[in-house]
């Protein structure tokens, strides 16, 4: 476009054009209507920079990923948002925390709803990241070149669990206090470093004001930062690995549901595998991120938040009696994701609390380095991976069984009770 000849501009003209100029300075590119524009969204927008220009059609298949990773991310976003809001009223003091929870429930506008959202999103996120891990395993998504991303994922799982654990203490009611007492006692069983670790974690020998403060700082500052950092690398790695795992040979093209028809194919920006841009041939079964990936993400987001909203409307987060350090509830149960551990711990403190879980986590980290085969990637329960899938599924089911036992079948003094 040629530059118009400079005319003396009146102040009035400048003022009239102000809104348009402001807008244009922020949004410098039009809403995409051509393929070129669609392709360039990944380079012209800060937030869309995270997307590749094109994604493999398989990636967008709900039946493949069920959007679990996305759901986990969105739950995290919801958690951060509601968490920060709650921080405006919560005080991490043993004398004030419970009263503040009462105020959030009773007097703060929407306090009870935001707290519910926070709590159910937290439980949801723990469950979803676990399911996401299962999905990645069962579709062989940890194999070369995605080994390190799997390791990052396991780290993310641990940080998520730790986030949930540190947050669990903050209401400072009987449920919170004794669950964390049980949980940190398990940590004390680690050999050599256990007691030190427990002392540093709690800031004292027992759960008290120091522990509350430390858990609060971990929960609102340290762990979210770590999580965001790991997530960023995790997403970066997805891009560098060429996107999500998919079958070697493309399946017959999926139906066109929700996919924008391509009028031209641009080889300008292909998939970026490795650190360098690739030009030239672009696989046929790929679609533009704008708008397909974006729509998929929006859809998952709306679905997630609608579910969280409904659940938060229907169920209130628990708030039990104020802390009474002399009177543990009977039974005193850890948060649900640790109940499997607590069940094991009732058999052997070391093996149940440190030995077996430690072993399981170690194995998880090493999965991609133990299984060096390259077949069976990109589809669920590939026959070639029967052994691996069976082992993993068994561990998952055992884990769930122990959690179920710990939740429903254990009563006072940890004796067996019937839940019916």
């Amino acid at each position: 476009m040629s530059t118009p000849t400079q005319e003396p501009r009146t102040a009035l003209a400048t003022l009239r054009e102000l809104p348009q100029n402001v807008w244009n300075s922020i949004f410098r590119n039009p809403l995409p209507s051509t393929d070129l524009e669609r392709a360039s969204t990944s380079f012209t927008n800060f937030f869309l920079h995270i997307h590749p220009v094109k994604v493999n059609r398989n990636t967008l298949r709900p039946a493949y990923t069920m959007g679990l990773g996305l759901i986990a991310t969105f739950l995290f976003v919801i958690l951060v948002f509601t968490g920060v809001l709650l921080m405006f009223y919560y005080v991490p003091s043993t004398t004030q925390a419970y009263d503040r929870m009462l105020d959030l429930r009773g007097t703060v506008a929407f306090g009870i709803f935001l707290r519910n959202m926070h709590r159910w999103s937290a439980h949801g996120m723990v469950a979803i990241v676990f399911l996401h891990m299962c999905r990645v395993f069962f579709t062989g998504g940890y194999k070369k070149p995605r080994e390190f991303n799997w390791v990052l994922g396991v780290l993310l799982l641990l940080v998520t669990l730790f986030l949930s654990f540190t947050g669990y203490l903050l209401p400072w009611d009987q449920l919170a206090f004794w669950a964390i007492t049980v949980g940190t006692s398990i940590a004390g069983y680690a050999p050599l470093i256990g007691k030190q670790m427990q002392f540093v974690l709690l800031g004292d020998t027992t759960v008290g004001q120091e522990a509350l403060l430390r858990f609060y700082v971990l929960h609102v500052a340290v762990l979210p930062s770590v999580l965001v950092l790991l997530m960023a690398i995790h997403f970066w790695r997805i891009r560098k690995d060429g996107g999500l795992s998919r079958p070697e040979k493309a399946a017959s093209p999926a139906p066109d549901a929700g996919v924008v028809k391509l009028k031209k194919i641009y080889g300008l920006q292909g998939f970026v595998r490795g650190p360098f841009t690739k030009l030239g041939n672009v696989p046929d079964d790929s679609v533009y991120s704008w708008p397909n990936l974006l729509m998929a993400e929006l859809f998952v987001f709306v679905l997630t938040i609608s579910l969280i909203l409904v659940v938060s409307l229907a169920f209130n987060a628990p708030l039990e009696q104020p802390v009474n350090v002399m009177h543990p509830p009977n039974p005193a149960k850890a948060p649900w994701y640790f109940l499997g551990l607590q069940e094991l711990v009732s058999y052997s403190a070391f093996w149940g609390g440190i030995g077996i879980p430690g072993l399981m986590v170690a194995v998880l980290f090493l999965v991609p380095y133990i299984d060096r085969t390259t077949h069976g990637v990109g589809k669920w329960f590939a026959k070639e991976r029967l052994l691996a899938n069976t082992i993993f599924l068994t561990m998952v089911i055992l884990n769930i069984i122990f959690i179920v036992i710990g939740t429903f079948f254990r009563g006072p003094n940890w004796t067996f009770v019937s839940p019916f």
Partner: protein
Amino acid sequence: MRLPLAIASLVVLIVHGVVFRNQFFHEWERHQAAYYEQARSMSKNDRERVELEARAPRIEQVIVTSFGDTRVDRCTTCHMGADDPRFAGHAEPLKAHPYSEATGDVQRNGRWERRHKFSDFGCTVCHDGQGRGLDTFYSHGEDEFWPEPLLGYVTQPNWRKDFGPKLKGREYMEANCAQCHTQEDFAGTPHVNRGRKLFYAMNCYGCHKIDGMSEGTLGPDLTEAGKKFKVDYLWESIVEPRANLATSFMPDFHLNQADVESLVIFLKSRRGVNFAETSLDRYKAHVANVAVVIPPGTAGEKAGEQLLGDRACTACHKLGDRDGGIAPDLSYEGLIRDDAWLGDHFLNPRSRVPDSIMPAFRFPADDFQKLSAYLESLKTPPAAADARTTFTNLCARCHGEKGDGNGKVAWYIDPSPRDFTKQGFLASKPRTRFIASIQEGVGGTSMPPWKRILKDDQISGVLDYVVQDFAKEPFKELKARNIPDENPVASSPESIAHGERMFLLRCTGCHGRKADGKGPNSLDILPHPRNFRNHWFVESVPDRRLFESIQYGVQGTAMPSWIDTFTPNDVGDIVNFIRSLQNARK
């Protein structure tokens, strides 16, 4: 995909709308609006009306710092008319809080003045409940997780239904009056006062400690019972002591409802804190070894009699026309026990009856002497009567009307009174043994010596009565059993060690690892397995009986015969081991 997206978006919108709406139609706003409307209609002039109209609904709260932890009481958000005398006749929640002289309110210039101003006291100090709550469920403490529901007004859903009506009533609030008004006979807390008197009169003080009031150690410390427990738990602990702890030996005192209510209110007032006293006062009370302060009686035996009454011994024992129904009958104590026995027993009941549940009272030595002297003076035997009447009057209290060991006080006695319907037991022992038991008593148990009360023919008659009416079969000729009269195995460290090993191998399931009769099976067995640390008992029993019991078992009890397991030498070692336990005790 668009359809689900649209649906989900609409769900999101609807939920937002519902939540938004919920936040704007609070219960309390309705109550406030009702208050303002009615207050407006009652205003005396326009100025007042204008002022009222200008007031928007908002959360009203009183912050109270003078009574322990900061309290934030928002009760007046709904109870807007609490301090407005014009609303005296309204329904709750707008009803004005009543004025009364009982709460110290005075009338001045024709209008009431409140003694306990809301701005100073708030509401929860007197009423309990949850100050920070803003709807009925939470603020009244109906939530089972709230430790302090409204006293006397609210029962929580997990409370026992049959207790519900008994736990309601304005008098329960006296427990909170007593947080400041701690005087013993404060006019405003009649139920607390009554409960305090019952605490002494029913001998609760003997087992339970309350700082500044009593020193008992057998039961839980009740100094902060009101702070730790809700009224339903306190009620249940009194009427059903074993509801929460199956092994509790707290007696069932068969109190009527009014007594239980007074005791519950009294216990609820025990919060371990007294806002009216200084920390120094509290410290002094805590360290002072406060004995039970009950004025002593006159000198001599009369003093003992007075003490017995004042110290509430008949809350458990029987004497004269008073009977607690829990402990033995003291009416003939002078004919049963001597000074030495009484002296030891008073200082520590377990020094004479090792499994007794009687508390060791910490009275001054002088009191014990007076009590002993009085009991020793009870030397009038009962009128001679036939065997059945004698049994009913003297034996049935423990052994039961039907001789089945289920007398009124049987549950509280350890070892349990013998069950005479166990024909097998009676038939396997020589008659002489039973005569001896009745005459001399059974050492270390609650079976007293009756020889100074019953003559030989009376004893014989009672025994026949027992055999005929309870065991229902006459004595049979006993088969000769090959039992040594004395332990043939000499006592030596090796013998004792071997006996201990045998014991630990076979006997601990019932008799316990410490041979005290408290093995894991003992909970289900009646009569209880023998406590071998009861040295009064073990020393009164010859080797022969120990041999017989081990080798042939004890019919009518759970003790089996071990003749096929232990050789006679083994048995001798075990007997040596058991005997060695008696020396260890000394």
